[in-house]
C-alpha cells in the first residue's frame, strides 16, 4: 500500500556491514551479545554448572578435545517445525505458573515443551507420559520464538533435553533469553533447512565447522557461526560466563 516508499539509506558507518537488502538481514544475530573481553579468554572447558538443574547434558554433546575453542558436537534426532513458531506454541501460557528457577518445576516445564503445536504436527515432540524429548535438535524456519518475552520458552526446550535449535532466523527476545540462560544454542542456518529435513532424521551439528550433517539424507549444510554468544551458552549462561571470565566475582 502506501508504505512502499521506503528510502533505504543504509549508512555503512552506522550499520554493520555487509547488509543485504533482503529479509535475511533480520537474521544478523550472532553479534547481539558481545562482552568487553575477547572470546579466546573463555576456557574451552568452561563450567557448565549453575543452570537450574545441572544434570541435563547438552544432547550427546561431545566436547571435542579441550584444545579447541568452543568445540562441541551435537548428535541425535531432529524435530522439524515451520515459520513463526511463537512462545505460546513452545510453552502455552497455562504452564507459566511453573517457576523455572525451582528445580522440580524446571523439570516439569520441560515436559510441556512444544505442547502448543497445532494438531497437524501429528508426531508430537514429547511422547505421552514422558518428561523428556527424544529429539535433541529442533530445525525451524523464520522468526523462531516470536511473541512473548517468557524465558520459560528456551528453558522448557533446554529442560526437555534439546541441545540446539537451528532456524533461519529468531525473534530477538528468544535469542537473547537462550544465550542469557545458556539453555539452548540458537543456531542459524544459511538456507531453509526446515524444507530439507524431516522429523526423525539423524543429524550432527559440528560447532567448530559451523556445519550440520543430515545422516538420513546424506546432505551437509552450512550454519552461521554463533560468534561470541557461543562461549556464553557453553558456560551455562550469562552469569556463569561472567564469573568464569572474571567479569563478576565468583560465588563462595
Amino acid at each position, binding site marked *: 500500500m502506501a508504505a512502499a516508499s521506503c528510502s533505504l539509506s543504509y549508512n555503512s558507518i552506522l550499520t554493520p556491514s555487509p547488509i543485504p537488502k533482503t529479509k535475511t538481514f533480520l537474521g544478523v544475530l550472532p553479534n547481539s551479545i558481545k562482552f568487553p573481553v575477547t572470546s579466546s579468554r573463555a576456557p574451552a572447558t568452561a563450567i557448565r554448572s549453575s543452570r537450574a538443574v545441572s544434570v541435563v547434558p547438552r544432547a550427546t554433546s561431545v566436547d571435542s578435545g579441550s584444545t579447541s575453542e568452543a568445540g562441541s558436537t551435537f548428535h541425535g534426532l531432529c524435530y522439524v517445525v515451520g515459520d513463526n513458531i511463537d512462545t505460546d506454541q513452545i510453552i502455552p501460557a*497455562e504452564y507459566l505458573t511453573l517457576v523455572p528457577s525451582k528445580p522440580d518445576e524446571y523439570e516439569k516445564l520441560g515436559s510441556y515443551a512444544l505442547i502448543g503445536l*497445532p494438531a497437524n504436527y501429528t508426531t508430537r515432540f514429547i511422547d505421552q507420559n514422558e518428561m523428556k524429548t527424544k529429539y535433541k535438535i529442533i530445525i525451524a524456519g523464520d*522468526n523462531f520464538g*516470536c511473541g512473548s518475552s517468557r524465558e520459560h520458552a528456551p528453558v522448557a526446550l533446554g529442560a526437555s533435553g534439546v541441545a540446539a535449535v537451528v532456524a533461519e532466523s529468531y525473534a530477538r527476545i528468544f535469542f*537473547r*533469553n537462550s544465550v542469557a540462560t545458556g539453555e539452548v544454542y540458537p543456531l542459524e542456518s544459511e538456507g531453509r533447512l526446515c524444507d530439507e529435513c524431516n522429523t526423525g532424521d539423524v543429524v550432527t551439528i559440528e560447532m567448530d565447522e559451523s556445519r550440520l550433517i543430515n545422516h538420513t539424507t546424506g546432505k551437509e549444510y552450512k550454519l552461521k557461526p554463533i560468534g561470541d554468544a557461543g562461549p556464553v551458552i557453553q558456560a551455562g549462561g550469562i*552469569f556463569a560466563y561472567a564469573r568464569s571470565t572474571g567479569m563478576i566475582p565468583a560465588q563462595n
Partner: protein
Amino acid sequence: MASSAISATPTSSFIANQKELGRFGFSSTSQFSIHKCKKSAIPMKIMSVMTPQQSERRPATTGSVKTALTLTEKILARASEKPQLSPGENVWVNVDILMTHDVCGPGSIGIFKKEFGENAKVWDREKLVIIPDHYIFTSDERANRNVDILRDFCTEQNIKYFYDIKDLSNFKVNPDYKGVCHIALAQEGHCRPGEVLLGTDSHTCTAGAFGQFATGIGNTDAGFVMGAGKLLLKVPPTLRFVMDGEMPDYLLAKDLILQIIGEISVSGATYKAMEFTGTTVESLTMEERMTLCNMAIEAGGKNGVVPADSTTFKYLEDKTSIGYEPVYSDAKASFLSEYRFDVTKLEPLVAKPHSPDNRALARECKDVKIDRVYIGSCTGGKTEDFLAAAKVFLASGKKVKVPTFLVPATQKVWMDVYALPVPGSGGKTCSQIFEEAGCDTPASPSCGACLGGPKDTYARMNEPMVCVSTTNRNFPGRMGHREGQIYLASPYTAAASALTGYVTDPREFLQ
C-alpha cells in the same frame, strides 16, 4: 553509573517516612542515587511547559554531538553515558525503571537471589515496580503462590511500588491493586520521556508512547538488573513510520498498527526500533499512542516510540513529580528505512488467524461467523477502548448477537467504565450501554483471557471457537484452545462484530 553501585539501604526512620513522602518520595532517594540527583537539577515546572517545535529540534542533551542521532539512540546514549553511539553497538545502559509481574517475577527473583546472594538487596527499591496482573482471579494454587512470592520479596526488600492484591473475591477492596502492568505503569506515573524502562513482558514496549526507551527482557536479564541496575543492550537501528492525514472517525490506532504489521510482517522490525511520527500520530491521545507502541513487538520490534509533545506533558502533569527530559530525533538522523502512510485512505482492518501480520480488510471478512467477542488487555482494554466500543453500541441501538466479554485493564479503567459519561449518550456510562446491548458484566481487571492462562480464567477459549478480540496476538492457542481462531481488531470493529455475529466493518454502524 554511580547510582547502580550504591544499593539503597533504607534506615528504619526512612521506612517510617515512606507514607508521608508519598509521591514526593523522590527527594528521599537523592541521598542514595547520584543518577537521580542529576535529574532533580531540572525543575519539573520548566520541563512540563516546554513544547518542542517540530522544525527546530533541540540539540542532543548529552553534550556536543557530531553525529545526528535518532530518538532511541539518544536515549541509549544518555543512559550509557556516551556522547554518541551507533546501531549495532552493545552498551551498558542504566535502567530507570524495572517492571515485573506474577508470571516472570518469581523466576527473576529466584535468579537474583541465586546469583547475588540470599541477603542481597535490589539496586534501588524505588525503581523496581512489581505489578501482579496475569493470573489473579484463579483458584490455581501455583498462580496464587506466585503472587505470594512477590509479596514476600517486596516486604523483604521494602519495595515502594508493589500493587498488591490479597482478597481475590472482590478486587475493589484491594486499593493497591491496579491490573494490567503496562497500563498501570502509565496511570501511576512510571512512564517518563527520555528514560529507560525494562520489563519482563514483551509488551513493555507500550511505554514507548511516552517518548522513552522501553523493551521486554527475560528473567535472567531481569535478575541481573535487579542486582546491578544496568544491562548490556544492543543499540537498534530505527525504522520510521510517518503517518499523515486526519484520522477517519471509523479508525483507531489499532487499525494503524495492524496496517504496519501487515506491511512489514511479524519479523519486519526484528532487532529494530520503530518510531511513529506524522500529523496523525501527533493528533493521537496517549492511550492511542500506547496501542500503537504496544504492538511493535508483534512486528518483532525491540521498541516502539512516539516523540513526546504537549499531549504527553499534559498527561503526565498530575502523575509524576520526577523531572524528565524528552529527547528527539535529530533532523539528520539516519533511519534504516522510512514508511509513509496516508491515513485518510485506510480502512478498518483485522488480523486473521493465526498471525498478527495476516492482514485483511474487516469488510473482506464479513462472511466469517464468530462465536464471541473479547474486549480487554494492554492493547485494547483501556478507558478509550471501552468508550469506542460503547460508541458503536450506542449508534446501533441494537443488542449483541454473540457473548461479548469485557475485561478492563486496570481498576482505574474499570471505574471509568462505570463512571464516565459516553459523549452523545445523554449521560449514560459505558457500563449502562454495555448492559443495554446485552454484553457480559465487565470483569475484574487483569490480563484475563488475552493469553489463555489457567483453565478457570474468565472468558478463556476452552473450545475451538472463533473470536474477534481487541488483544494483540492470534497465534494458535493464544486465548486457550489450540484450534481456536482469533481475529484481532479495533474496539470499533470488535463491537460492530458483536452486533452482527460476523466480522463486521464498523462503518456499518458509525456512518
